[in-house]
């Protein structure tokens, strides 16, 4: 079992805490003038997303978490699981609702996503930063308005709803920033 000593602690390190895979967000070395040194660590639980603080005696260790980020192609949703494939090896994994969570509304077949695997099982799925999606429903709006001000809601093929300029019509494809949920441009 691989472990990390407190001297190896740094932001981004993947560790096991209370049976859950976690990532270190912040590591602070504290030591009284004469006495015991500690590492005060901020940790995000990768399953629940919760951030907690924990203190370790300097010199102690944490178990390493077998967590890797890997680029995978989204294939399809069978109603229960979302299936992804490693493009080089054709290896497939199935992500459940917890892992996909909010990302579901951006997932378009064949897009390349970052799937975080823990012991080979998907833990989280991150969509591409920019996705190109078709508008399936939006009010007709006013023709000729190109100011971009105001805007209107539009439902996209994956189910996401974003605000688009009034000139965007049903059936068009647009680019959206998945990090902010904002419309970028017509595709």
């Amino acid at each position: 079992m691989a472990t990390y000593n407190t001297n190896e602690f740094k932001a981004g390190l993947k560790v096991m805490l209370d049976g859950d895979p976690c990532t270190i967000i912040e590591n602070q070395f504290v030591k009284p003038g004469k006495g015991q040194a500690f590492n005060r660590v901020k940790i995000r639980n990768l399953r629940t997303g919760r951030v907690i603080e924990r203190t370790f005696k300097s010199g102690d260790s944490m178990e390493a978490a077998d967590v890797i980020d890997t680029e995978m192609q989204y294939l399809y949703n069978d109603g229960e699981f979302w299936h992804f494939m490693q493009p080089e090896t054709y290896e497939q994994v199935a992500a459940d609702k917890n892992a996909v969570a909010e990302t579901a509304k951006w997932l378009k077949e064949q897009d390349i996503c970052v799937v975080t695997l823990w012991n080979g099982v998907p833990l989280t799925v991150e969509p591409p930063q920019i996705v190109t999606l078709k508008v399936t429903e939006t009010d007709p709006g006013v023709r000729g308005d190109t100011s971009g001000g105001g805007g209107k809601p539009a439902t996209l093929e994956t189910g996401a709803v974003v605000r688009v300029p009034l000139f965007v019509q049903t059936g068009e494809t647009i680019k959206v920033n998945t990090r902010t949920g904002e419309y970028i441009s017509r595709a």
Partner: protein
Amino acid sequence: MKLDTHSDWRPATSLEVLKRRARMLARIRGFFARRNVLEVETPILSPTAATDPHLQSFATRYTGPGKPDGCMFYLQTSPEFPMKRLLASGSGSIYQICKAFRNGEAGRLHNPEFTLLEWYRVGFDHHRLMDETAELVTEVLEGQFRLGPVEKLSYREAFLRYCGLDPHTAGTDEFAACARERGIRVDGLSRGTLDSWRDLLLTHVIQPQLGKGRLTFLYDYPASQAALARVRPGNPPVAERFELYLEGAELANGFHELDNAGEQHRRFERDLARRKHIGLPGVPPDGSLLAALEHGLPACAGVALGVDRLVMLATGGASLAEAMAFPIDRA
């Protein structure tokens, strides 16, 4: 030869901060010159090392004239022992500004190599030295940092005020319950010593509250944390030791100095036994210090102050790295 040309060669801080640092060092020297305290220099390399289990010395090897097979030298963790040898030889009050080295210490308030101001006052006890420390820091920070009236709290008063417990009588369960109530979750202390628990609460709960806009002294530590201080008999006995805090950062640590060679010898042995118990390498203790104490150390108090931390606070830096030209990652 392949050199890493990607490393950042520039200083970590601005020239303005370095100029202010230089002015602060000049003020320190002026302060002691006016008080007739002698500036001294002592060796950074020593064949002996600090025995304190919480201090790890850097070690290096000397080979050359007189030592054809080489011998170990340790970089000082503080200049305390040679300065006490000067005091025992009749130097009178002395001060030194020097580099000290502590392996394994790096972070916002730590750099493995740092600048210490250390001084000894013959005839002072720890209370009189606290007063002088406050005068020095106030003078050095003048015009840079507004300070309210000085606060003095005994170690016990600080724990009663901020943790609601008596640090001299509380047991592990009480310390653990206090930590839990304050949302502190700690691993690896279940079999920890009482001092580890005291250190946890001091660093996590009390320290951030100390020295807000003023100098706060903690004094009279548990006898188990005496380090090199005298222990005053009583119920409980306390170590005549103090620490100075400003804006939650520990700035200085001082002692009413232990002058008993037999007691010093026992503390060396206790330290070395503890080092062995927790799997740390043994180190050669300083026999010259014991000989000097046998000869006779004048009654005195001494204090070491972290100059980099003082510069950091004076110049509004967020970390020690902003107070020094080249912190360890640019050294």
